[in-house]
């Protein structure tokens, strides 16, 4: 298995040293695996997307407009 080196802040290292029964290598491995899986899953989904940049801009503007409408209803003094 390849080996990597991680940098952590001094205070975090001190806390880690007090928790002697935790396998930090396994903790890091799981965190990295989860991150890789998340992005891989997301990219496998959007790889099939037919959305265009123009669509994204158009729908994004509509979402922002409806979001603002909600804020306008809740907070007085907004145009």
């Amino acid at each position, binding site marked *: 298995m390849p080996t990597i080196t991680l940098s952590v802040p001094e205070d975090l290292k001190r806390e880690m040293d007090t928790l002697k029964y935790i396998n930090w290598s396994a903790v890091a491995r799981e965190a990295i695996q989860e*991150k890789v899986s*998340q*992005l891989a*899953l*997301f*990219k496998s*989904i*959007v*790889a*099939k*997307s*037919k*959305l*265009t*940049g123009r*669509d*994204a*801009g158009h*729908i*994004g*503007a*509509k*979402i*922002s*407009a*409806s*979001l*603002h409408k*909600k*804020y306008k209803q*809740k*907070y007085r*003094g*907004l*145009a």
Partner: protein
Amino acid sequence: MLVVIDANVLCSALLAKGKTADILFSDRITAIAPELLLAELERHKEELIAKSKLSDQEFVTALALFKRVVTIIPAREFAPYLVEANKLLGSHVKDTAYVALALCYSCPLWSKEKFLRKIGKIEVLTTDELAHRIS
């Protein structure tokens, strides 16, 4: 790096090509968004599904993944900045919540909206600029 994300950028993460998703899921940024943004994205689900041709299940999964990487900030936190943001925006008021959040956290806004660059009081970064900043 803390950065406010707007609806346009979130929708752009659903494009088959481009670096928006790579940046959004990277650990080099912490994306924050105003309360209700993801709920509004969900409300526009039918249109996003129709245009993207993703299945309902694929869209739901993508939204669930968004929820893991975008931190939603309660409106009460940045409410004191809403009126100021609203005034800065003139006729582009739809972006009020994003600008208020950026003012509140003194952090950049990740947006493609060209007008926002003119308001001056906050830093606005395009996807390319943000990619360069964190590389």
